[in-house]
């Protein structure tokens, strides 16, 4: 039995020592280096992982805000009041007296029609 165990151990050693090796194909290294170069992360992917996760969230948030502002206030957009929001409001006129109206309507001497 002991002999058999040693025999099996020897056979196992024979097997492990006899297995062939695998040679990498020619140009494998340059092929891999080229692919790794192509797959290098571009500038925003080089941000920290937090920034990488936050960026799409921020873009989505902007999109949703824009969409909501359109959905919730369509009349403002359609009536053009959206534009008015940006027009400076005119100053209100002060109350006008009767004398002021009359004096505005009756021509004065300087206009050459006086009595």
């Amino acid at each position, binding site marked *: 039995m002991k002999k058999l165990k040693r025999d099996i151990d020897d056979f196992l050693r024979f097997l492990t020592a006899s297995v062939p090796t695998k040679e990498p*194909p020619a140009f494998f290294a340059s092929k891999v280096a080229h692919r790794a170069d192509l797959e290098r992360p571009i500038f925003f992917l080089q941000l920290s992982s937090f920034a990488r996760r936050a960026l799409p969230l921020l873009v989505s948030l902007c999109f949703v805000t824009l969409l909501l502002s359109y959905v919730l206030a369509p009349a403002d957009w359609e009536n053009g009041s959206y534009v008015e929001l940006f027009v400076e409001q005119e100053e209100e006129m002060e109350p006008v007296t009767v004398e002021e109206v009359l004096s505005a309507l009756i021509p004065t001497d300087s206009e050459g029609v006086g009595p």
Partner: protein
Amino acid sequence: MQISDAELVAQALKGDRGAAEEVVSRYQRLVFNILYHYLGPGNDIEDLAQDIFLKFFKNLERYDPKRPLNHWLARIASNQCIDEIRKRKKNPVQLESDLEIEENRSLEELWRNPGPALGLSDADAERCMKLLQKSMEVLSPKDRMAFVLREVQDLDYGEVAAIMGSSELAARIRVSRARKRLRQELEGVMA
């Protein structure tokens, strides 16, 4: 003078393609042979090796220059192999045909009476590989990896432990357990 691994990695991180190519050239045989000896022939070793190196370059900034680069690459390769074998274990294992049994017997003959020829023929080496692969199917993925690294790749226990992320004792236990199971498997072949 050969440039150190740490310097090569630093240059590769700056986008130097030549440095990246040199890293691959240095360690491609290691990666290919871990894959080949663990998974056996008939697998797309080149594609898997390429994936391993791409994973390595993607995580290059996490490399600790105090640790050997070959251990890190071997670890990525080892994890990839274990994932592959787990996927494959879901498929039914082929039964040994009568022809294979005959082939195994003749391998045993070859071992008992090696003859005057130096070394094995390619066909015999291939048969050794097939028999070893077949026998290793009974091992757990990690025991199998420990055995391949120690007995086929001829690494010491410290290296096996570093690659597998375990203690040296755990590596020794895995290899010894694998040997015991393989002995039982081969007993059937030699009977």
